[in-house]
């Protein structure tokens, strides 16, 4: 099962795909008490949709001096199983207010101002390069552990070890895991619908390609515990056994 990251016309917010491999929740109203019930309402009609998915808050439509209470918003979103991880757009004041609540500004691929993504527990990775052109494959030799996030910007990612539960591996190109994939794998960041995910042992928490994603409960009859390739066929995610 996969879900297209598009069209939701219900005020006071709009859901829309972005050039991250993530969804953006564009806030049209700064009032937490307005946003959250409306979201909850929408989500009741689309059960399972977005459950536990990472989401980016879009700040462009907010009044630059009327910042929402980001702490409260984060807590309430988490309570309905939506996990905000950062912000996009908005002026410096809004961004700062969000940052203070643990929501760093993210850079949309192809967007204007490059801003580095926060690294919770950094694993040595090369300097992030500007989004122009294709970058060399990033190879990680050790296990990626809970709380760590590795992002191969503008290229492919190869992980030789395991990706453990609670870890996240992201590539604008393909993701290869030559161990067990137990965490999250996100490929095709920059709208690359042809990106694929390969894992020698497929036990993921979540896989995503170009904004389409499947969580563990949505993997259907994917061959878990096997070598698997994940790709997109139209709008649906396909899981093929390798070898």
């Amino acid at each position, binding site marked *: 099962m996969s879900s297209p990251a598009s069209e939701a016309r219900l005020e006071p917010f709009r859901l829309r795909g972005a050039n991250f491999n993530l969804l953006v929740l564009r806030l049209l109203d700064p009032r937490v008490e307005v946003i959250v019930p409306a979201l909850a309402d929408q989500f009741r009609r689309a059960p399972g949709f977005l459950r536990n998915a990472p989401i980016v808050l879009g700040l462009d439509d907010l009044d630059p001096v009327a910042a929402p209470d980001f702490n409260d918003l984060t807590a309430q979103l988490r309570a309905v199983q939506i996990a905000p991880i950062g912000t996009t757009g908005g002026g410096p004041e809004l961004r700062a207010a969000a940052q203070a609540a643990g929501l760093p500004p993210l850079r949309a691929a192809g967007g204007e101002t490059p801003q580095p993504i926060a690294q919770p*527990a950094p*694993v040595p990775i090369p300097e992030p390069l500007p989004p122009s052109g294709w970058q060399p494959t990033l190879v990680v030799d050790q296990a990626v*552990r*809970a*709380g760590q996030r590795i992002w191969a910007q503008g290229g492919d990612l190869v992980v030789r*070890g*395991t990706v453990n*539960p609670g870890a996240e591996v992201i590539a604008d190109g393909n993701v290869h895991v030559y161990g*067990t994939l137990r965490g999250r794998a996100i490929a095709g960041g920059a709208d690359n619908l042809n990106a694929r995910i390969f894992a020698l042992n497929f036990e993921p928490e979540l896989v995503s390609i170009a904004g389409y994603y499947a969580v563990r409960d949505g993997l259907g009859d994917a061959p878990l515990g096997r070598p698997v390739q994940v790709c997109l066929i139209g709008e649906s995610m396909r899981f093929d056994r390798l070898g």
Partner: protein
Amino acid sequence: MAQVVVVTSGKGGVGKTTSSAAFATGLAQAGKKTVVIDFDVGLRNLDLIMGVERRVVFDIVNVISGEAKLNQALIRDKRVDTLSILPASQTRDKDALTKEGVATIIEELSKDFDFILCDSPAGIEKGAMLALYFADQAVVVTNPEVSSVRDSDRILGVLQSKSKRAEEKKDPVKEHLLVTRYDPARVERGEMLKLEDVQDILRIPLLGVIPESESVLKASNTGNPVILDGESQAGQAYKDAVARFLGEDRPMRFIEAEKRGFFSRLFGGRAA
């Protein structure tokens, strides 16, 4: 040079302090000059487990703030004379610990001791970060349950990126897995993770498996590290683990469920 060994886990209540006390005592019994430091400022209890709580005058915070000399704060163990304890403060908060202060203490202790054990508090906040920062080796204490394994995994990531060795790009911290509170019967019933499952995620060398045992609580209530209880399975398992830590090869024990015989079924006997 002394070896600095952190006993850490991420999660609380998994057996770090119990293991620190057992390891420190075991290393000292093997003739190694050993000091064990309680980093759990505000929630100190290593002194209780070691049975020295009535002898605490000064603590690590007093030393760092210059109110006492290091050798005034060290408590010599009465059972094993190569063992000393540096207690934590009960009344201060974790901010009283500073990196420079801890560095000075560790440097000074390095002159006199073979092993400096650091009993880490839970979490990944300042106290835990300082406890692991100077480590040469880490004993990662893990219970056979999903949340404990996840937190240990997280701590391993921190050791590999935030320790002094990592920052200075030296050889990495040597990691050891110590699985504690292992209950083979519950594992067999599927209520706890199997040893292989824990190892499969964490992928660091297994130092030992300490069975769940009532003798641990008895030992801590009397202030005698359980390793001194040669009758108990937990005590024997800790002895094995310390021997392995010092390079000996010993088979793992107490990892299979006991086949209960007629008499133990009849009398409802339990593992000591």
